[in-house]
């Protein structure tokens, strides 16, 4: 009974938080809605990364490759046919002459992300430590390079635009909830528990019969599929995208969100994503002037101050609380003890 309640809280708390953000998003003005959209998509991306990095304890800089593949697949396939033939002339004919709906594009992105992760993970999941980090980073570099140069599969170095902007508050919320639910189902499963055992002690886990590499590959594939899905949400939120937007900066920012929230829990991933994107939105508002008690305070900050504060606060949180805002623990009701 207590255990069931605990599980309910572990899944319920992140879900309630995301739904709350989604509900607030429907009440704000159109110009502010973009902040909430960003926050919801960030939740999806960070939770997708968490599924692999958080459960396995292996650092990966490569998950944004799957976001990029998902974003460009969903984007290229949903540009309306009549404009596509004019803009994306260099595509393979099969890509140029077909277009698909919103939901199929999300599923396509998830499928591609998962398959790509599986293929890449097969050799790479044998690696540990920094070697794994650098190898996954190499995957990011290759993905970026190919997406930027190969104009038969996408727009190349130019901007992909005219993508239907279907990720509003509803799709953002539902999308983030789907990612959270899959991540939760995975970490509660036998597979997820085996992988977390290997995170705590790889040798001991192997000793009791856990195939560490196989378990990592499972997590990498699930994470890749979720990342692809999150990429599709992203492109449908932005409406236009370049390869630079799904590259280094997004990699560092989302990893920072995960670590700031707490690397080892789903709750940490959600809290970290919402806290950092909330702070970022607040600071970019503040840069244009702060409203205190109805008075507009013009601080006359030089542009770029936002980034200084954002980075300083991120560093400060990590120095003061290295285990993250949640301490890497799952959500639990106050008074409910963990041993149950």
């Amino acid at each position: 009974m207590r255990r069931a309640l605990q599980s309910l809280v572990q899944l319920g708390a992140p879900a309630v938080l995301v739904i709350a953000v989604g509900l607030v998003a429907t009440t704000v003005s159109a110009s502010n809605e973009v902040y909430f959209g960003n926050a919801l998509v960030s939740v999806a991306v960070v939770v997708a990364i968490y599924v692999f990095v958080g459960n396995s304890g292996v650092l990966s800089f490569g998950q944004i490759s799957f976001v990029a593949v998902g974003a460009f697949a969903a984007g290229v396939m949903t540009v309306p046919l009549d404009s596509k033939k004019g803009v994306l002339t260099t595509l393979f004919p099969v890509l140029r002459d077909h277009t698909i709906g919103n939901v199929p594009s999300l599923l396509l992105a998830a499928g591609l992300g998962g398959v790509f992760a599986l293929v890449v993970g097969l050799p790479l999941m044998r690696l540990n430590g920094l070697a794994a980090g650098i190898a996954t980073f190499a995957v990011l570099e290759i993905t970026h390079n190919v997406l930027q140069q190969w104009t038969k599969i996408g727009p190349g170095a130019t901007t992909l635009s005219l993508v239907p902007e279907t990720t509003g508050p509803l799709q953002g919320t539902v999308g983030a909830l789907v990612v959270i639910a899959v991540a939760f189902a995975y970490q509660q499963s036998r597979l997820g528990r085996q992988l977390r055992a290997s995170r705590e002690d790889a040798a001991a886990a192997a000793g009791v019969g856990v195939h560490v590499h196989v378990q990592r590959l499972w997590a990498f594939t699930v994470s890749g599929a979720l990342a692809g899905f999150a990429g599709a949400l992203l492109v449908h939120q932005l409406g236009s995208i370049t390869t630079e937007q799904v590259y280094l900066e997004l990699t560092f920012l989302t990893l920072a969100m995960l670590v700031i929230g707490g690397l080892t829990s789903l709750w940490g991933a959600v809290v970290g994503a919402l806290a950092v994107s909330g702070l970022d939105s607040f600071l970019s508002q503040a840069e244009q002037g702060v409203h205190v008690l109805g008075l507009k305070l013009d601080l006359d900050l030089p542009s770029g101050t936002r980034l200084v504060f954002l980075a300083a606060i991120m560093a400060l949180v990590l120095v003061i609380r290295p285990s993250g805002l949640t301490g890497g623990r799952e959500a639990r009701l106050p008074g409910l003890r963990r041993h149950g």
Partner: protein
Amino acid sequence: MIVGFLNLNFQTLTDAVGLGAIYALMAVGIGLVFGVLRLVNFAYGQLVMAGAYTLAYTSGWPLAASILACFGVVVGLSLAMETAVFRPLRGQSPAVMLVTTFAISFLLQAIALILDLRNDQLGEVAASLTTLAQPISIFGAQVREITLVELGVAIGALLLLALLLLRTTIGLHTRAAASDFRTARLLGVRANRVIALSVVLSGVIAAAVAVMLTVQFPLVTPDFALHDTIIVLVGVVVGGIDRLWTATLGGFAIGFVSGLLNGLLPTDKTVYLPSAVFALVILVLLLRPQGLFAWGRRAAVPDRV
């Protein structure tokens, strides 16, 4: 035939060696701190960037004073980083330390951007150093003086460092701490002194790199040396981060190879060059995860990421 090929590309070769020398120095700077703290300092490039801005802002000063200011600023910043960030994080997981240095790197870039944009123009030019970039002629090939300086500085710095680490007591302490920090402390090695030494040395190296890079690329922007740092980090891990000399060789190798490929291939063929280089990186990591140059031994410390 081969000689003709080499002669044709003597310029390319010297440029590649020069880039390799700079990357080797950066690899030493990163490897020194990793050795004692087990911390991959992603913000290392921003130390170089700070040095480059110092050179640009002191362009009007006498050259020696300008370079001295660069060393002062970089070593000071390096020590400040140690006290404010590395020290509280000692013993934390590598992921947390690495991500914190991401944040520090962002922070320094953001500060540089604000300082730089005061005159509404991105980028500052370090004019006083450009004399060093004049080409001179060796064996009929144009070699920029700075390439020779780079080689000289790199070799000199590595020799001095080797002497320091192998022939002095503090060097012995540093090596002991790098191979097993806890045991070294039990045996009386003073942790803070060893760490301070490594941090200062890595700062001095960053300043030297700043001077040399600024001579080659006088336009200084907030992302100065950022790309180089990423490439060096890749090289360091590919070479073998657990020992200083394998890390250094890795840095040199990746600098030399990218310099060579860039010079040899025509521009229209280089668009997929990053893919080829990083595919090679993956291959090497799969075949030799302990490092390309780490022959015949396992890692001194178990993997902790």
